[in-house]
């Protein structure tokens, strides 16, 4: 079964957003997303210090099967990109919620995260997709 941790928020585009203690948001793709994509072979990451609008394409994950855009779930400034993925894109497959994070972002409006899906909403979304 697909894993959906309850310590973070989700988007309809199968991304997760975890708020760190310092208010910075870590962002990645869900277990469901990595399984659907299959083996990742390239990850294109955003440039640190870039300002990103909500819903803007800011990364690309490419598997053997397909390339998929990653959208910024919130407006903000990129603080860090997971450079380990350049040599080891498979981390997104093996540990999508941990080592396979994509980038970190300082949100323009910290409360906006409340508008994203919680783990139960996201689980429901996946159930609906299955039907």
């Amino acid at each position, binding site marked *: 079964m697909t894993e959906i941790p309850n310590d973070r928020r989700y988007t309809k585009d199968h991304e997760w957003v975890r708020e760190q203690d310092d208010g910075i948001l870590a962002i990645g793709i869900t277990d469901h997303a990595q*399984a659907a994509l*299959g*083996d990742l*072979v*390239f990850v*294109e990451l955003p440039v640190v210090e870039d300002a990103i609008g909500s819903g803007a394409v800011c990364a690309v994950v*490419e598997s*053997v*099967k*397909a*390339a998929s855009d990653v959208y910024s779930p919130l407006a903000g400034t990129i603080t860090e990109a997971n450079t380990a993925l350049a040599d080891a894109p*498979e981390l997104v*497959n093996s540990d999508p919620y941990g080592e396979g994070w994509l980038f970190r972002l300082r949100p323009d409006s910290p409360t906006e995260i409340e508008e994203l899906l919680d783990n139960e909403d996201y689980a429901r979304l996946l159930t609906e997709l299955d039907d």
Partner: protein
Amino acid sequence: MNELKRTPLYQSHLDAGARMVDFGGWSLPVAYGSQIEEHKVVRRAVGMFDVSHMTIIDVGGDRVRPYLRWLLANDVAKLGASANGVCKALYTCMLDEVGGILDDLIVYRLGQASFRLIVNAATREKDLAWLNGHAADYSVEVVERTELAMVAVQGPRAGATVGPLLANGAAVASLAPFTARRDNDWFVARTGYTGEDGIEIMLPGARASTLWADLQARSAVACGLGARDTLRLEAGLNLYGLDMDESVTPLECGLAWTVAFTEDRPFVGREALEARRRTGVAVKQIGLILEGRGVLRSGFVVKTGAGDGTVTSGTFSPTLGRSIALARVPSEADGPCDVLIRGQARRAQTVKLPFVRNGEIKVDLETADD
């Protein structure tokens, strides 16, 4: 939604946690875990594929030989009589009157008056209609062998893995590439679609899951369609529906070598092919290796000095660590070209196929870096 067809190994795939997909109306595993790992195990050891969706058709009758010499672009006359129970196999296209490829297939000569054709799953109905449509003229009987499953065991250890599971493993071990033999009610061939040594076994569907489990116990790793596609692309082997279809002839997709222009043998499509050879063939098939990151995909535009071409199929090559592709480009095209990826022109090296054969890289990657 249409009910997907299931192979006799369907439950084995589910039990193994395979990710199942709709492949031409069949529910088949795309991968069991990592498709890249599955790919690599075939290159270095042994993997197994459920290819039961492939259509097995036996054709028989006193005039079956002239029937196939008329319908197939390669010449079954090359398949000599079987000796010591060994049958020969031939790769060929089946063409329509204008030389378009109806399908590509492998034909085995089972005996004096019977042959076996392995055709694609997606082209099943079209092929059967075509074969049946010409059968009456030759009093040939066309029988689809739906009761048979087919398992492809592929990789350098394929022979050693399969041998002990057969009634006559020693005889199978000595099979040359592109030959086959019966093993009781199984039919065992030294063929495949991976660029490695391999054995394909056709057997009654009811026995398939036992064979699958026995192969697994002998360390064969279950592999899905994902690995099958990256392996065949590295091997430079065409996929019907992408690299060829009715809109192209064998001359335009790297398969001229499979057409036997034997003197005095008329065959369906021959006149069209000869006319095309006289006027010159406008396009050719090439291999591409992308420089840098990204993955070439079917439909991408290829910019050459002689005009535009198209990627017919592309993927990431686990062996090369780069993206590779088959492309159709103007015949005069030469040297490196550019491929448009998301609107960006990206450099790609043109290479002779295959990319990989028997575990070895066959292209010069250093050159591709220049």
